[in-house]
């Protein structure tokens, strides 16, 4: 069961919300977009390499169980991805509206329920089919107990296609955070990726990518109000389509550094497997994403089930 705590200090809620500041979309691409067009791009420059326009959605159901007290929790999220592409220009909007989310805190082995609304707007230009320049504006609001945390980031990125199917990309985002009653904070998020992609959407395709996301934080502090999140995320994915079917694998590792002097690293490791139908004009893909999170000696098991669906216009 998800426990609700309303009598603790706001600093605790802030601390938990700060952990969410490290969160990325569950499935994200930096150098090249996924072969599943219903999944979001993480930078504007990535979005440029899409094939055509997309109207996509995603539902995510999650279950969690800690190994300590064996407490359980559930989550349910709905995401959207809209992409519009002309010869040179790509516009993409993706985000999350509402839903139930859970956050595990290993120190006391408890789950907390929180709410999230976020939106991402991406704009990119593709030059001569070998250069992509993109910008992005991201806004999110997370609420835990009586604390509302607003995060806003804007940034730009650059993507290059080398040869037939080698892609490299880099982006930088300036992130700012507002929590009523606390000082505003600012930090930088850097993203880099390299990928291979071959084939066309009307045939068989192959894609693999390795990406890094560094969410810069401030020096360590004694209380949550003094610090900002700091994390490193590595993403590795392998996808291919064969005869109208899409096969997908992705590994994600997120390390959240202990910005509090007395806290411990939080490490999440995820493996995602996907299988589904993928044609030129529609897709229906099912993913299972299993993960383990450790915090010191505490541990929780996570299972996510994703269903993406979309209509595509090339």
């Amino acid at each position, binding site marked *: 069961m998800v426990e609700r705590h309303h009598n603790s200090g706001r600093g605790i809620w802030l601390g938990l919300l700060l952990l969410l500041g490290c969160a990325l979309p569950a499935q994200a691409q930096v150098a090249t977009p996924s072969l599943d067009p219903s999944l979001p791009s993480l930078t504007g420059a990535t979005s440029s390499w899409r094939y055509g326009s997309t109207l996509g959605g995603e539902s995510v159901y999650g279950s969690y169980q800690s190994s300590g007290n064996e407490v359980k929790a559930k989550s349910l999220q709905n995401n959207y991805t809209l992409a519009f592409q002309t010869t*040179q220009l790509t516009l993409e909007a993706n985000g999350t509206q509402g839903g139930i989310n859970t956050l595990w805190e290993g120190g006391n082995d408890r789950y907390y329920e929180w709410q999230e609304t976020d939106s991402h707007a991406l704009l990119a*230009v593709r030059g001569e089919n*070998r*250069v992509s*320049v993109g910008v992005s504006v991201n806004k999110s609001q997370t609420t835990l107990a009586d604390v509302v945390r607003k995060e806003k980031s804007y*940034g*730009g990125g*650059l993507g290059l296609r080398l040869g037939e199917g080698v892609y490299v990309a880099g982006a930088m985002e300036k992130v700012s955070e507002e929590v009523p009653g606390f000082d505003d904070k600012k930090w930088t998020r850097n993203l880099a990726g390299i990928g291979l992609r071959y084939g066309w959407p009307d045939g068989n395709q192959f894609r693999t990518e390795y990406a890094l996301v560094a969410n810069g934080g401030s020096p360590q502090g004694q209380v949550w109000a003094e610090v900002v999140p700091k994390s490193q995320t590595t993403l590795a994915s392998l996808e291919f389509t064969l005869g109208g079917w899409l096969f997908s694998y992705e590994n994600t590792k997120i390390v959240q550094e202990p910005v509090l002097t007395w806290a411990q690293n939080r490490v999440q490791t995820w493996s995602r497997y996907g299988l589904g139908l993928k044609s030129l004009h529609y897709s229906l893909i099912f993913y299972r994403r299993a993960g383990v999170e450790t915090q010191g000696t505490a541990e929780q098991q996570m299972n996510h089930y994703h269903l993406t669906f979309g209509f595509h216009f090339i």
Partner: protein
Amino acid sequence: MKHLLKSFAPLLAGVLLAGTLQAQVASPSLNLSQPNLTSAVAGWREEISAQASYFEGNGKRRQGGSDVYEFSSTGSSSGLTLPFWILTLEAQAQNRSYKTKINERQEGTLPIDQNDSHVALAISDNPSWFSLGVGSGTAQQNDYQSRLQPKQHSQLSSLDGSLSLKFGDWFYLGNGVRQIRDQTEERVDLFRFERLAGVGMIFGQPGESRLRLEVSRIESPKAFEARDASQAYHRHDHELTDFQEAEVLIQGLLFSGRSMTKTRDEKIANGNSATQMTTETRREGGVIWVPKEGLFLGFAFINEVLDHPNYTDSHSSFQINIGYLF
């Protein structure tokens, strides 16, 4: 000290208000979305282009060891470059507005909003070795001074003339002069002028990889207009603004870095003629896709710092540039 600063508040107007950093005095930027600082430089443009930008940022004022204000700012600009025959017309407009999050007023002026516009007309021969330009512009600004004077309006109207010379297809010399009418509420109008000079180099031919370097300077001498029967005196302290620019164009991708340092000799009017320097610095780095024709898009990260004897304003912003090259 407070009342002294207040009396000089109009002199502080204009701090941290620059949107797009204009630094082109001698040679044209390889970035077509970049407006020029002197009208003559517009004469080197050969392409018709329309451009717009959006910028957003935040910052804070640090005073006496603590943060007293937090700013957030948004703005946009638009421009059009229209070369025809031996003439080039360039028009640009820009606006920027600020919000101050902490309503804890202490010392110094706070910007509220700004609106700029400028029209330039340049004439150059063909093949070109010189460009002669004239222009006119206005810069309107509202500032917060105090609770009693929450909004003070000021306006700079300018007329400028400039000349840019090209030697050997790569070396540029620029020179110009700008006459400014400085209007501020409750003060007499002040007429003053500024001198501009710069040296630029562009290596490489259009369509190839290129490198552009430029250094330039604006000198704004001190000026004073005595009070009349109804309005207070108006004084402008000596200012020196230095620019450095570097641009590298590789395969259509333009990487650029610009910096600006402005120093102002600011006298505290207490009869002792104490002189204090105020320094404003601005650093900008960005990238933009520059096609042979069609849509161009880019972005820039900008950091600005105003180091005043009594406080320090720092501001960082992000700018999106988009346009079309016909």
